[in-house]
Structure formats: structure tokens, C-alpha cells
């Protein structure tokens, strides 16, 4: 392991609680600028380089769309693995790939965060995955991620989505015989299927749901509040719901702090910085004002740690809030803007 990998492992293990975020960010920037040609080109076009950037907040954020069009890799040698975006937002043809030189860093950064936000107050519990297994979908980062948590924290686990969709009967049967708290983990859309099935039962107190992802390209969209109400209707009033904010292009994840301290606002680990930028100038907007979500995820050592998403969010004193995917502008009159045109042609 290189020095930077060893340092990140210590940070993930909370062995360096007062590490200097900016210093590590600048070191990773220097490394990724040198190793990733597409990222270097992107930075050069903005006249930013490790020679000129002294404040980590000035490091250019690479738009996540780059992962679809270029190989964003700054590891040593060939990558051991890659994860692929699901392609639901842009159609099936173009998928982004996130390459990893090795997976142990990814594993090490995921577990403490999951434990902190999803499992406070419990050691281990049964995990019911509303997602495909890694065997079935080896390039899904969610499947891999869930399998890592199951290995670390599950008393038992099973996968309830296969290529035919949600295995509803098996899931209902397992839920009915739950005699202690269980965790249901998976995609938001799988939970929509679950609540649409008409299932009604009462899970034991301490049971929890962690859902992630959006609904774009799916047959039905519901708001998060609506989904959580429907989940409580289906699984009982004692079920706590937590949203995970993450994406294939990230290694770390952020979560609602509902289970941790009751706040529905999101937070992430110390090695992740989430900032909202004015889309016009890419200057950070003050708390309370919406902006484009820019993420610095120091765990993204092998790709690019500095990401610009297409999401709109707001920073608050107690965490951040995701307002959703930028909806796509509409023209003010009888011209038609690109997004309207694409929607009309899709519909």
C-alpha cells in the first residue's frame, strides 16, 4: 500500500480524527491531475493545476457525466474492478464506469459510515436486501456495497430482487416471521413495488429501512415523504426510514441523520465535503441558498475525488438537503428548450 492509501485507511478507521482535509485533498488533486488525462485536460481548460491551486476549495470539480464519456482512472496499473451506473436517467446506452485499482479502501470507507448512520444502537441484525445480489449484478455498486455491510453486520441476509423483479412472496414470508428488528436495504423503486403490493404487517420496533436512488425512467414517481408514509402503512409505524445519498461515481455515501440524532438533513463522513455551488459561476453559495451539489470524496482515490453532480441541494447548519435532480429548464415562450424537446420525444 502506498503512503496515501495507508493514510486514508487510518482516516477511515478514525485513527486520525484531526486530519487536515485540505492538505489531503490537495495531495490527491496533485496525484489525480498527473494520472488522469481527461481530468488534467478539464483542469487545464480552467487554468487550474497543482502548481496554481493552494486552497482545496479551488480544485475543479469534474462533472459526473465525464464518467460516461471518458475513462476516469488514476490508479496504478490496470483497475481490479469497475462499477457501472444503472443508466436509468440517460437511457440504457450510455453508462458511466467507476474504476478501482483495489477494493479494500472502498470496503474500509463504507462500513463505519453505514454503521454510524444506519445501525446506531444495534450491533447486528437480519438484512433483507431489496436489490440484486453482486452475483447477479457484479457491476452494481449498490449490490457490492450492501454485500459488504451484510458481511460485517448481518446476522443473516438475503437478496429479494432478481432479474424478474421483486421476489415479493419470499420477502413477505420472511417479514412475517420477523421476531426482532430487521433492516430492509435497497433501491427506492423496489420499496415502491413493496408498498404497492398491498402488504400490511407490523415489524418489531427497531426495524429500519435504508433506501437510495431516484425514480427517473420508472413507471411511478413518489416523493420521499410520501414513500416513507407508505412504508409505515405497509410495515408498521415503528419502522425508521433513512435515505442514502450516493452515486456510483462516489466511494463514500451520505445519509439522513434520522437515526443518529433525529435530523432529516444529510451528513457524511469526515473525508467527504459537500458544497453547493452557483451553477453560473461555480462559486459556493451561502447556506440556505440552492446550488449545484459539488462533492469532494477523498475516498475516490482511484478515479476523481472532486465531483460536480447534476443535483440541486441546500446547505443548512445541521446538514444538507437534496432538492432533486435539476429539473431541466423550460423555454419562456414558444421556443422549446433542449430538455423539453427530449422529454417530448421520449414521451
Amino acid at each position, binding site marked *: 500500500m502506498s503512503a496515501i492509501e495507508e493514510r486514508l485507511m487510518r482516516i477511515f478507521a478514525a485513527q486520525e480524527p484531526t486530519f487536515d482535509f485540505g492538505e489531503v485533498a490537495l495531495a490527491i488533486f496533485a496525484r489525480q491531475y498527473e494520472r488522469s488525462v481527461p481530468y488534467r485536460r478539464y483542469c487545464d481548460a480552467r487554468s487550474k493545476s497543482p502548481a496554481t491551486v493552494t486552497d482545496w476549495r479551488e480544485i475543479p470539480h469534474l462533472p459526473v457525466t465525464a464518467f460516461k464519456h471518458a475513462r476516469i482512472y488514476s490508479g496504478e496499473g490496470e483497475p481490479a474492478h469497475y462499477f457501472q451506473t444503472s443508466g436509468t436517467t440517460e437511457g440504457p446506452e450510455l453508462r458511466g464506469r467507476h474504476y478501482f485499482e483495489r477494493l479494500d479502501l472502498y470496503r474500509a470507507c463504507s462500513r463505519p459510515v453505514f454503521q454510524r448512520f444506519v445501525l446506531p444502537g444495534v450491533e447486528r441484525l437480519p438484512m433483507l436486501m431489496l436489490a440484486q445480489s453482486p452475483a447477479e449484478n457484479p457491476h452494481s455498486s449498490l449490490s457490492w456495497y450492501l454485500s459488504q455491510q451484510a458481511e460485517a453486520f448481518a446476522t443473516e441476509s438475503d437478496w429479494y430482487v432478481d432479474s424478474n423483479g421483486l421476489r415479493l412472496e419470499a420477502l413477505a414470508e420472511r417479514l412475517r416471521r420477523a421476531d426482532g428488528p430487521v433492516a430492509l436495504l435497497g433501491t427506492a423503486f423496489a420499496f415502491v413495488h413493496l408498498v404497492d403490493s398491498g402488504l400490511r404487517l407490523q415489524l418489531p420496533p427497531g426495524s429500519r429501512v435504508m433506501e437510495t436512488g431516484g425514480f427517473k425512467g420508472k413507471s411511478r414517481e413518489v416523493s420521499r415523504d410520501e414513500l416513507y408514509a407508505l412504508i409505515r402503512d405497509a410495515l408498521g409505524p415503528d419502522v425508521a426510514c433513512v435515505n442514502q445519498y450516493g452515486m456510483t461515481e462516489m466511494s463514500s455515501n451520505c445519509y439522513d441523520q434520522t437515526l443518529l440524532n433525529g435530523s432529516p438533513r444529510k451528513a457524511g463522513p469526515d473525508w467527504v465535503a459537500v458544497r453547493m455551488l452557483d451553477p453560473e459561476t461555480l462559486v459556493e453559495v451561502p447556506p440556505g441558498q440552492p446550488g449545484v451539489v459539488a462533492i469532494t470524496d477523498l475516498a475516490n482515490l482511484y478515479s476523481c475525488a472532486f465531483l460536480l453532480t447534476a443535483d*440541486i441541494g441546500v446547505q443548512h447548519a445541521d446538514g444538507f438537503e437534496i432538492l432533486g435532480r435539476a429539473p431541466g*429548464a423550460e423555454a419562456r415562450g414558444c421556443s422549446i428548450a433542449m*430538455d423539453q424537446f427530449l422529454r417530448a420525444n421520449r414521451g
Partner: protein
Amino acid sequence: MIGVDSNVIDRLMAAQATLATRPVDRILALLDRVCARWLDHADPIRREAEERLAESSGLAPAMLRRGLDDMIRRTRAIPALLDADLGSRYALDRFVERASGLRSRAFGPGLLTCLFSGNVPGIPAFDIALALALKSACLVRVAAAEPVFAPLFARSITEVDAGLGEAVHVTRWPYDDPLPYQRAGAVLAYGADASIAAIRQLVPPEVRFLGHGHKISFAVVAAEAATEQTARRLARDVAMYDQQGCVSPHMAFVERGGPLSPAGFAEACAAAFAQLQGEMPRAKLTLEEAAALRAARDEAEFTADAFHGSPGDLAWAVIHSETPAFLPSPLNRLLRTYAISSLSEVEGLVAPHAAYLQTIAYAGPEARRLALAETLGRLGASRIAPIGQAQQPHPLWRHDGAPTAASLVRWVEIEPEEDPQP
């Protein structure tokens, strides 16, 4: 000024009854005086409009000045439009002779109800004046985004002639209030396809409905005209109203083999945009607009053959591709340029989107203009305009292919008595 009740419409109809008795030339003379006021940049109402529009729309003052002049000049040409569209403007006064002994008289809609969109200030001038020229009252619903111009234009009419002014009422109403449509002779609406469809549903079947929905305009540059001058003219067409007009070009198909290569032409457009930014800077964007532009630019940086964008902000961008496609712009001064090997390629590229076609801004030799007009006209384009003039539709242009004044009138004909058979 919210809502419409039947008293408003009663008053409009009473004013229209008087208007119907006035000679068309008298009405046109009054409208000409209104236009003259608006073309006088020192006129207080014109100055108020410029100031308030700059404030409310965010559009650059230089752009607003030029745009208002264009709109008023088009309005001032209504007499010629009536003669062209109706054969003679005097058909609005009396029966006029037509071919084969037929005599014809035209009646305006009585009440023209107009719903305007907020993208291009100044548009209402033309339609309000046209209604009055057709001796009809005009009930106007302004867009939430542009409530400034139409009331000022109505006020200028009242100041010139109180009776004429009484035939115009500017307000806003919930679009689904049926009253403004029920007593209209015709309803004219600009806006998104969904809005047009929703309004069409509310208009009684016997009332004429003219809807101007979604349109996409683009430019075609023949090799001969691929020059810096054409690029400068095109950049102006795109920058005007920050590309929000239905005549604003989204993309340019540039033929290879000219003085500038298509990539060189894209670069020249970028230089022209940069220069325009000083003269007429782009308006402030909403978060959604900025995010859409940002996303389109991000995508282009990794996919386009060449990308030129304003540094440090989203003021303008040119995205060049050597492989032609048909992808509209997110607007706000983002131009896509596509290289083509021959103008004949354009037909195949745009054919799947025929329903959206409107203005084709063209630069190149006359003979090739005709061929292009023939093919694209057949597909659905309604206007072939020189690049540099996309934003100044000819007053006699049949907007979206339908005659402007003729679509609003109703005719009555007196047929000649044939020689009695023995």
C-alpha cells in the same frame, strides 16, 4: 388588474361597436401615430417601457431598444399587410370588387382574445394593433414573466385616441376561466405546446383558435457564406432575446469547403458572442436555466469535437460537432454547430422533427436558397430568412404558415346575377 368579468367584456363590445363605424384609414392613421410615438426614443412612454423592461426581463437595454424598434416597425406595416392579406384594406369598410363580378366585405373577429408568452417583449404591439385595424376589440392576457409592455402599449393607444383605447383591455386571468373565450370571435395564443393544447380545449368550437406552440428554428450556412461576417450576424440572431424567441436559431448546419471550415466557423461564432457580451450581456438565469446550461456544457466538454464557452460563467457557448445531428439548445446563447458535406443533408436531419420547424436562417447563394426553401418548406418550415435577420420577420410573413390578418376575418360575398336564360 386581475381577472375578467362580463362588465369588462360588455365595455369592450360597446367600444367595438363604435370602432366598427370608423373608416379603416382613420384607425390606421391613429395606429401610425401610436407607432411613431414608440419609435421616438425620447417619448416618455417609450422610455418608461425600456426602463421597466430592462428591470423586469433582465434583457440588455441595447437589445430591448433594438427589439422594440423591430416590433413597432412590423406593427407599422399593418396597412400593407391588410392589402396583401385581404386584397384591399377597404374590404373592412365596404363591399369591394373582386374577380368575376364578385363583391366581398370582411369583418374582423369583433373581440380578439390574446394570450401572450413572456419570452419576447413587444410582441403584443402587433396583435393588439392588428385587432384594432380589423375594427375589433382586444382582450389581452399578459404573461406572468412579462406584464410590462402590453399595458404601456394600451396606454399609448388611449393617449392617442381615447375611443381606440377603450377597445383594448390588458389583464391576467386564470387561463382556465372560460369567460374570455366565450364571447371572443377569435382567440390567439402563444406558448408551450401544453399551454396551447389546454387553451384550445376551453375555446368554444365556433370560435376561431390560432395557437403558436413550440417551434425550433435553425441556421443553414452554405460553404460560400461560411465567413466571419456570417458568424457575426448569426451570433446576433442567437443572442437576441437570449435565444428565447421561436425565431431564434438553436443550431447551425455549416457546409464544408467554404472560406471557413465548419470548425473555424464555430470559432468565429464564439468570438462574435464574446464581443456581443459587452454590448448586450445575457440576462440573469434562473437556477434551472443555469443548471441546464451547465449540464449541456459539461456533456460537450467530453463529447464535442470542439467546445468554446465563456470563461468563468455561462454567458455563451458554441458546441461544434463534425457529425451532424438535430439537438436543440438549452437556450440562453448556446449554439450548436454541425458540419455537413452538402446542404442536401439537412432534409434528412430535420425531417423527424418536421412539426417543430419554423424559421430557417440561411446564408449562401440565391439558387441554393430556393432549393433549400423548396425542401424544407415541404417539410413544414414557414420562413427562410437571411442570417442576421432571423429576429425581424417580414411584416407580410405568414406566421407559422397561416395568413395573419386573413385568418382572423370572416367574409361575406355578393354574387353577381348571371344573365337570365331565355
